[in-house]
């Protein structure tokens, strides 16, 4: 049996938050409204911050508090605000029909969740925080990939990329005691911020040039 360094209540809180992250992801997979999708991503990031906060509190680790603050500022507040503004400015409300319809998407995401648990099972003995965190992390990465393939609006693809990143950060919390060294966390934080801004610029230019945000129109380059 693995040894849980955290006591019972923090471990359960973490498991709960991780499960809620997964719920947010599944809702995102079947969400057509762009603004609601952005909210869902913000909520998912909020739970990620919650997990980090529990870790920080139970280990009394200062640098994890910094990670909590960065997640709150960046992923819960700033990025959703940025994307929100862009969506409103472009006056687009809905995602166009995805490649795979919503009931089928749900089914596929369910399958991916099972796959995530299967992949994570050999490593549960390494987890420091409950049994499910790594499985959820891998599921977030897998479903993020699926979302990216399935959706055609540029903004939804950006959101999918961000959920993949959330999954990776959850894996970092699940597998290590205190997350990664602060300088690395800072580097990742700024990269994600800059990435979304650059993607925003590109989306804007694509919109200007193609009069559309539909990525399937980007299909001239072949071979």
């Amino acid at each position: 049996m693995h040894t849980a360094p955290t006591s019972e209540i923090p471990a359960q809180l973490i498991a709960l938050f991780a499960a809620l992250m997964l719920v947010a992801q599944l809702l995102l997979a079947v969400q057509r409204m762009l603004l609601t999708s952005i909210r869902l991503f913000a909520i998912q990031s909020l739970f990620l911050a919650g997990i980090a906060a529990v870790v920080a509190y139970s280990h009394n680790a200062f640098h994890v508090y910094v990670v909590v603050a960065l997640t709150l500022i960046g992923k819960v507040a700033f990025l959703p605000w940025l994307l929100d503004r862009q969506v409103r400015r472009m006056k687009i409300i809905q995602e166009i029909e995805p490649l795979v319809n919503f009931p089928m998407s749900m089914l596929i995401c369910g399958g991916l969740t099972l796959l995530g648990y299967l992949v994570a099972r050999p490593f549960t003995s390494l987890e420091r925080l409950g049994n499910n965190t790594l499985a959820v992390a891998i599921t977030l990465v897998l479903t993020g990939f699926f979302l990216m393939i399935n959706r055609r609006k540029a903004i939804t693809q950006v959101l999918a990329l961000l959920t993949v990143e959330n999954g990776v950060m959850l894996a970092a919390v699940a597998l290590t005691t205190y997350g990664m060294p602060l300088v690395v966390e800072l580097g990742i934080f700024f990269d994600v911020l800059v990435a979304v801004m650059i993607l925003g610029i590109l989306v804007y230019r694509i919109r200007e040039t193609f009069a559309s945000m539909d990525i399937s129109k980007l299909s001239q380059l072949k071979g």
Partner: protein
Amino acid sequence: MSLLASLLFVPAGAALGCSLVRSRRVMAVLGMLAFGLTLAVGVALLLRVAADGAVTEWSGFLRADALSAWMVVLISVVSLATSVYAGRYFQRDLVARVVTEWQVKEFFILTPLFGCGMFLAVLANSLGVMWAAVEATALSSVLLVALYNRRTSLEGAWKYVILGSLGLALALLGTVFIYAAACKGSSRQLPSFDWSYLVTIAPQLDPRLVRLAFVFALVGYGTKAGLAPMHTWLPDAHSEAPSPTSAMLSGVSLKIALYALLRFHILTAACLGPAFSCHLLLGFGLLSMFLAAPFILVQENLKRMLAYSSLEHVGLICVGIGLGTPLTIFGALLHMGYHALTKPVLFFAAGNIHQSCHTLEFRLIGPGMVRLLPVTVLCLGLAAVAATGLPPFGLFFSELTVISGGVAAGQMTISVLVLAALIACFCGMLRQFTRILPGEPKARSLGDGRRMDGVPAMGLLLGGLLVFSVWLPRPVLDIMHQAAGIIGGEP
């Protein structure tokens, strides 16, 4: 004097300077000065590492061993040539009203930042910081790829950033797994993430986690390095970027991602033995080479063809490392160097042709380029001869080293496969260049003003290629032997 820190501050300073001045000429000169300076620093670093071994600075945050020093020199050379070429290139573009003043300024600000990111990637000791730096190179080059703001360039940039970011997200997961292994294998609560520390404890790391980490790093950094089958962004981004940027992407940026992958390869080999990661590298390398050959043969666009040729060369480098003997690794490192000197010349020449003919389609460029742009075609021809691996150029020797190393190691099948792929790529390149270079031009003259375009940059690289093909200075040989030793797992 702090060598490593200056490599980061000089390009960053140049970027800052370019954002402050208005004159285009001053920006071009700043770029050249910055990368000229980093080349000097790079050579000094190379000499020092060759003599005394690894250099560390900022209490171990920055570290340069032989492998990093070699990469620093390559980055500096290609960036310097790019800056030399870019000034006149954009002047011609401005005259043709293809770009605006603001876009040119964007280029001169982003290019040093791109270089700075690459320097940080090879100098960072922590694997996490290395990841962040590779991501930074991707982000700083995206807007360069999209610079022309055409429909196709936006498409190329979008594919580049989405696939690159997805790949790098996987690489980050691999990085996290390595750190998790370090947390478990170390008694400390928050162990160091430094590569130099990890490599000392590598044998004690959890093999399952390390294996998983390597697979994720291979797919992740492999995407950025353009390994097949994750290469689909590569021809799009390379063909749509302005030629100076294509040169940097192909000449060094791919190799930076390979460098990151190599760091994981060394850790994995130290933990699991060399077989696992070597076999994977071999497989992906051979696949890339074989996939490149038919695409070179049927390609209709000059720069896309050059991009597929990069795929072939990256594949060969991977095969050389995957074969895993000191000789083949040495050949692979040598190949990195010669390729960095050759490929930018091809892209610069392609840029000249693009500006003169306003197209990159072979069909429209038509035969007889040698009459219309004799100097450009001379450089293009020489570089093409080099890139296809003919003597007397260095790529012939490095390819020969890899193949003969493979034969000496008893890997007959792989050596024959490599040879077959090389010959196929050679035939493809030969066919494509004979379509446009010789023959009678279609009664068209381009004027005399464009004859000497880009000669300084191409001359610099081709001169370097010729000199270093016949003569490798002692310290360079030492550095490469040291680097091959590091990759081969010597302490």
